[in-house]
């Protein structure tokens, strides 16, 4: 010890400063360096959990805003690099050695982030404008969305449908029937134009004899479906597009009596007709089905959009009782603010149902 000190002492020379303080400072610096290494080691160990959190926050329907905020407020850029490396479903390794957002992931995220905004706008919209815009969109997109046209034309009251037609005039300077007739080709045209033009009587008065005979006509048309498609049968169209809903529900009952089956059982191949009858006679079944499809694992974007659409349809009172059935599924598959909107609206429906 003395030897070292004296050597050190001698090296510094005429200033007579001890080397010990330098050694002390060097040790402190070394310790600091080691501790930062240690810290980044601890941060390295937190990454897998964050990767998992990010994956979860961005998968499913809607986005989990709260989790995203907690991840993003960790500012260390090394941290983010490890997240990017860990989330292979969102980031891919670019040939020039950096982790890049996957284009299809960007597309998906745009859609998911937009859901809340759409839900807000649609909910605040006047029902007439909402329906007019939905009709236009469905028409533009084509046959895969014709079910939406059926849904709106058949589940709204006569005056609500009239309102939608008026709003359509204002928004698009055309009538809905003229646009439908122009753009829908094929056998669905007659059905869709007639459905949208209807102004059904809404009183309870129903003639049982007429209902019986019309049930028979429907049965005949459905039994002949191999020779002629029911959607092309004049009488089927007449009955479904002009009769009142109470009358059609009576027809539905009579049909069951005389054939032992429901009308929809015979129409498995004719989706549009099937949905027409469901919406007119058993709307609750229809809405339950839409919810189910939207919350399935393999649901496509159109199916999922139905959720937003139905959220704003809640006023129609058709969603009573659905909340219990789907609350669990929604909790599982839907995220963030969008989920809160869905659950809130369904709960409201439940409450108003009880009132």
């Amino acid at each position, binding site marked *: 010890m003395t030897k070292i000190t004296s050597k050190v002492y001698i090296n510094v020379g005429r200033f007579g400063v001890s080397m010990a303080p330098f050694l002390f400072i060097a040790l402190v610096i070394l310790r600091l360096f080691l501790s930062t290494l240690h810290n980044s080691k601890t941060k390295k160990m937190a990454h897998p959990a964050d990767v998992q959190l990010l994956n979860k926050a961005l998968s499913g329907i809607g986005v989990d805003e709260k989790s995203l905020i907690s991840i993003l407020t960790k500012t260390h850029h090394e941290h983010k690099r490890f997240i990017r490396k860990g989330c292979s479903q969102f980031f891919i390794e670019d040939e020039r050695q950096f982790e890049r957002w996957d284009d299809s992931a960007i597309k998906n995220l745009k859609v998911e982030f937009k859901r809340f905004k759409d839900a807000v706008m649609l909910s605040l919209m006047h029902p007439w404008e909402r329906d007019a815009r939905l009709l236009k969109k469905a028409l533009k997109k084509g046959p895969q969305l014709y079910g939406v046209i059926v849904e709106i034309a058949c589940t709204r009251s006569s005056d609500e449908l*009239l309102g939608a*037609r*008026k709003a359509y*005039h204002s928004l698009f*300077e*055309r*009538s809905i*029937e*003229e646009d439908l*007739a*122009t753009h829908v080709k094929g056998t669905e*045209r007659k059905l869709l*134009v*007639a459905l949208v*033009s*209807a*102004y*059904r*009587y*809404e*009183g309870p*008065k129903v003639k049982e004899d007429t209902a019986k005979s019309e049930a028979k006509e429907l049965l005949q048309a459905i039994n002949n479906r191999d020779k002629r498609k029911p959607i092309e049968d*004049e009488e089927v169209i*007449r009955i479904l*597009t*002009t*009769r*009142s809903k109470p009358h059609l529900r009576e027809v539905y009952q009579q049909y069951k009596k005389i054939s032992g089956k429901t009308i929809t059982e015979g129409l498995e191949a004719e989706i549009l007709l099937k949905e027409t009858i469901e919406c007119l006679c058993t709307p609750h079944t229809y809405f339950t089905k839409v919810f189910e499809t939207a919350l399935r694992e393999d649901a496509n974007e159109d199916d999922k959009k139905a959720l937003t659409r139905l959220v704003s349809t809640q006023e129609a009172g058709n969603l009573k009782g659905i909340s219990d059935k789907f609350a669990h599924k929604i909790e599982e598959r839907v995220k963030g603010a969008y989920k809160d909107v869905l659950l809130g609206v369904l709960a409201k429906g439940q409450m108003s149902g009880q009132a």
Partner: protein
Amino acid sequence: MATLKVPAHLPAPSEDVEQLRKAFEGWGTNEQLIIDILAHRNAPQRNLIRKTYAEACGEDLLTSLEKELSSDFERAVLLFTLDPAERDAYLANESTKRFTSSNWILMEIACTRSPHELFNVRKAYHARYKKSLEEDVAHHTTGEYRKFLVPLVSAFRYEGEEVNLTLAKSEAKILRDKISHKHYSDEEVIRIVTTRSKAQLNATLNHYNTAFGNAINKDLKADPKDEFLKLLRAAIKCLTVPEKYFEKVLRQAINKLGTDEWALTRVVTTRAEVDMVRIKEEYQRRNSVTLEKAIAGDTSGDYERMLLALI
């Protein structure tokens, strides 16, 4: 423009009701008094009189009129007293019944009323007949008539003046194509005539005339015996030049051996508050005699007085 003349100094509804009661009192009926009142009140005023009468007398004014009056005069007064939407609903319902069935009247109502008025007719139809207009029309028609009339009465045409000239050109071409192949009740023809706005349809038909040399109705006369064609031509006329259509109905009603009173009554009572002035002008232009003179020459008594009071 309307020909209906309402006095500058309007009596209160209660006064009118009092006068009407006096007209019904006793052995006979004071028909002139009824004409003096009812033929000189507009629709809102008549509605008010009906309401006041029901409150004062416990009976609908129309029921009292039915009791007191008869024949063509009764029909004219009843029809005119009704609120326009109710009147059209009544006429439409009549047109679906077996013995009074008429596709023409349905077409006339559907094409000459404004989209808004037509919807009011549908509302009134619900209220009065507990059914929808389109369900009755569909139930009582078949084939090409159903294909045409149901969309016609269900239409809620856009009311704006906007016109798409490119569309007008392409649709004129479609019409030309179908007509030259004699596909008069083709889906495309029906689509264009039953859904396009009146302004757009007008533009299309103008273009048809310019491009193909003939007005469309001339080309549609190819088969004079075809009843459906006649209806189609009339519908097109109603949609574009209703005063000419009504002039023709009046002319045929008056010139007919014995007069078609129902047609005459219908046109006068339904147009007196709408465009009777133009119809009269058209009538004089086409027949070289005023409508007043023609009616006076062809009808008589209270019925004549009622019609003349309205025009």
